[in-house]
C-alpha cells in the first residue's frame, strides 16, 4: 500500500523563522504489518535526512520513541501501519508528545520528566543489615506479585504526556513518577514508603490526578496506571488516618 505521513516538524536552527509546521511525505510499497518506526526510518533514509527522532531498541523495551500518533501516545516501534492509517490517502499523523518542550522535530526535552521521576526517591531503601548468611532477603511470591505491574515501567513518558493535568501544570509529578513510587511503596522489603507518600501527598503529588484515565490506554507496557495512582491515593489516606504522614516531614521543595 501507499501511505502519507503527516509529520510535525520543528527546526530550532531556522533562525527567526523557527516555528513548528506540518510536512507530508509519501511512501510507496508499504506492508500493512510494517511498523511506524520503520516507516519513519524510510522517510529519513530515503527522502529527508534532517527528520529527527529518538529510537533505539525497536522492540518496545527501551522507551525512546514515544510519540503522538493520530492524536494518541504510542511507541512508534510497537505500532503497525495497518492499525493507524486513516482516510483515502492512508494518512498517519505523527507529532511529538505533549507537555514537554520540543527541541527538534519529534525530540522533546526529557529533563522535566526525569526531574519528577527523581522527586519520588525512585530507589530501594532498606537500612537493615543484610541477612547474616550473606544471602538474599526473603519475600513471598505473593508479596512480589503485589507490585509486579508497576515494575514494567520503561520511563517512556507516554502516560505523563497524555495527562491533561500535566499539560495544565508541569509541576505535577505525573503518572510515571507515581507508577515508579508505587513500585517501591508496595514492595514489602522497602522502608522508604513514608517519605514517598509524604512527597506524593503534596499539592503537586497524586491529588493533581483527576482520574481522567488517559494514562492507562497510553501505556505501551499495559500497566494499569490509573489503578496504581488510586492505590497510592488510598495509601496516603490510610496513612493520614493512622498518623503515619507527618506534615512536618514533608520537604519544603515540594510546596507550591
Amino acid at each position: 500500500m501507499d501511505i502519507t505521513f503527516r509529520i510535525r516538524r520543528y527546526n530550532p536552527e531556522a533562525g527567526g523563522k523557527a516555528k513548528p509546521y506540518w510536512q507530508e511525505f509519501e511512501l510507496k510499497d508499504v506492508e500493512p504489518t510494517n511498523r511506524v518506526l520503520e516507516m519513519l526510518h524510510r522517510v529519513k533514509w530515503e527522502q529527508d535526512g534532517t527528520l529527527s527522532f529518538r529510537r533505539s531498541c525497536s522492540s518496545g523495551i527501551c522507551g525512546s520513541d514515544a510519540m503522538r500518533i493520530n492524536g494518541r501516545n504510542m511507541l512508534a516501534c510497537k505500532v503497525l501501519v495497518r492499525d493507524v492509517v486513516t482516510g483515502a490517502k492512508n494518512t498517519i499523523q505523527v507529532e511529538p508528545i505533549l507537555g514537554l518542550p520540543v527541541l527538534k522535530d519529534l525530540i522533546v526535552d526529557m529533563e522535566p520528566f526525569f526531574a519528577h521521576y527523581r522527586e519520588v526517591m525512585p530507589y530501594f531503601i532498606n537500612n537493615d543489615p543484610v541477612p547474616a548468611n550473606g544471602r538474599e532477603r526473603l519475600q513471598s511470591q505473593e508479596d512480589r506479585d503485589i507490585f509486579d505491574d508497576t515494575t514494567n515501567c520503561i520511563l517512556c513518558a507516554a502516560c505523563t504526556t497524555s495527562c491533561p493535568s500535566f499539560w495544565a501544570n508541569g509541576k505535577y509529578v505525573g503518572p510515571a513518577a507515581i507508577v515508579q513510587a508505587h513500585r517501591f511503596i508496595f514492595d514489602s522489603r522497602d522502608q522508604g514508603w513514608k517519605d514517598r507518600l509524604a512527597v506524593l501527598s503534596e499539592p503537586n503529588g497524586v491529588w493533581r490526578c483527576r482520574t481522567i484515565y488517559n494514562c492507562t490506554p497510553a501505556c505501551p507496557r499495559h500497566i494499569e496506571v490509573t489503578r496504581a495512582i488510586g492505590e497510592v491515593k488510598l495509601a496516603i489516606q490510610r496513612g493520614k488516618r493512622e498518623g503515619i504522614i507527618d506534615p512536618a516531614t514533608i520537604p519544603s521543595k515540594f510546596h507550591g
Partner: protein
Amino acid sequence: MIIHKHEVVIVGAGGAGLMAALYASRGGADVAVVSKLYPTRSHTGAALGGIGAALGNLEEDKPLWHAFDTVKGGDYLADQDAALILAENAVDAIVELEHMGLPFDRTPDGKISQRRFGGHTSNFGEKPVRRACHSADRTGHMILQTLYQQCIKNNVNFFDEFHVVDVIMNGDACVGAVALELSTGEFHVFHAKAVFFATGGWGRVWQITSNAHSLTGDGAAVVFRRGIPMEDMEFYQFHPTGLYGLGVLLTEGIRGEGGILLNRNGERFMEKYAPKIKDLASRDVVSRSIYLEVRDGNGIKGSNYVHLDIRPQTVNRYLAEAGETRRIDDDYIRKNLAETLDVCRTYIGVDPLTEPIPIQPTAHYSMGGIPTNIDAEAIWDAQGTVVRGLYAAGEVACVSVHGANRLGTNSLVDLVVFGRRGGMKMAEFVKTAEFLPLPNNPTAQIEAEFQRIRNAKGKTRIHELRTRMQKVMMDHVSVFRTESGMNQAIEELKELRHLYMTDTFIEDRGTKYNTDLMEAWELGCMLDMADSTALSAVNRKESRGAHSREDYKDRDDVNWMVHTLAYRETDDPYAPTPTYRLDTTKKVDTSLANEDERFLPKERTY
C-alpha cells in the same frame, strides 16, 4: 570545547557501565557516566530470560558446574580462570542485586527463583539445572532499572545524550574521552584517571539482528582506532530464535519452559542434533541446526524459518513423553512469558497460545571485543600488558569468558561480575594515580573527521552503504562460512569503505540533534567492526562454536587453542584504506584443565 574532569569516566550506561559506576563511587571515586542514550534506553533492558548463578535454591548446584558449562558452551576457547571467576562471583553479585531491591521471582520459601536455560547443567553435563534467576521475562529490564535507581541514590554524575567519539591517549596511557553533546553539537573533553568502556555490541553490522539501532560498535571502534586490539572478533553469536523477518529476540526461556522447535514436517529436529538436551542445546548448535534444516528444504513452506511451539498441548505431550510430571496451561504461559506473547502479537499478529511462532537465527551477541584481564583492565597484547587508565566490560569487552559461543544468561552475569570488578579496581587505582596531562588539541582529529562527513559532497546515501554492508555480512560472515564467501565480503567491505570516504553526503547541516550526522559517523565504526570480524574469521581455519566453516568443519585443538588479536595498523584513525594485522599467539587459559581433566577440550555433545 568544554573540559570536564572526573577521576572515573564511564562510557555507556547499560548494566556493565552502571555496575562499574556504582562500585567505583561506593569505593570513593568521583564518577561520571557518559552515554549517547538516556541510561534506561540501554540494551541491557532487552535481556529477557534470566541471569545464571549457582545459588542452588531449587536443586543442588555449584559454581564449578557453572564454570564447566561456560567453558564447554564456549567450545573450550573461554579462558578458564575467567570462567571460574564469572561463576564464583555471580553468586555474590546476584545476591547484591537483590539487596539493591531487584524484584526477582521467588521460590515457595521466598528465595530467588531459578529456572532452566540452554546449556546450563548439573554435575558436568549430566542434566539440565535450574540456575537462571529471573524476574518474569524481563530480567535485563529489572537489572537496568535497579542499577540506574541505585546510581541516582548514590548521586552519580550523568551526562545523558553525550556521544563519545574518541578516546584520548597520552603515550600508552588513556587519559580521557571526547564526547559530542547531541543537543548542541558541541565537543566536550572528559579528562580522567580511568576511562571505562561499556558500550555494548555491534549487531547492526548484520541484516537480521536482535540488537538496538544504537548498537553500532562505536565504543569499540574508537578504542580500536587508537591502537588497542580487538580480540576474537570472528566469534559472533546468532541467537536461534529471532522473530522471522524482524530479528526481534524471543527468549530462550520459551524453550526453558518446554517450547519445542519443529520443522515443516512437524519433526522435533533437535532430537537429531542434540539427543540429550535437545531444544536446550547451546545457541550456536541450535542456530546451525536450524540452518541445516532450512538448507535441506525442511524450513516452513520451504522457506528460511522454522516453528517454535509453546502451545500447552504440544509442550505437555513432549513432557509426558519424557516421563515428566510437570504440565503447563495457558495461564502459566500468560504469567511467565508475558513479554513473548506481547511481542508475537504486536509484531507479527501471531498468538503463541494458539499457533506456533515463526523464527530464524538473528545476529545477537559479540563474544569478542576489547581484550581485558579479569579486573576489566584493557590489554595491549598477547602478553597481557595493561593499557594504563583503560577499562572495559560487558559485551564490548572480551575477558574471555564466552569463548567461541556464549551461554544464555551469561551476558548478564558477565556485565554484573566484570562491571563490579572493574568498578572496584578503578576505585583502588584512582586513589593513588595522578591525572596525566591531556595532549594539545585533543579534539582536533575527531572534529576534522566530523567536518569531513558533514561537508562531503558525494552521491551515495549512508543508508545504501549500510544496507550493502549488512547484507554481505549476513550472506558470508554469519552462521556458516567459507573462504571464498568471506574473501568476497572483505573485497566488498573495501569498496564500501572507499565509497564511505569519498562519495557520501548527508542532508542535515544543523548542530542540534543531528542524527543524520551521527548515523553517518556510526557507519564508519561499523565498517571497522565488519573488517576486523571478516579478517579474523577468514584467518581461523577451523570450526569452533559460533565460527563454523564449511571448508574446515572440525575444531582444531592442536593449532587453534588461541585467541585472535586484530590490530588496526594504520596510525591515522580515519585513514581511507586502513590496514590490519592479526596476532594468534595469545593462548587460551586452561588452568582448570590442569587440575581436573573434565575441563580438557573434548567433543561437544548435548
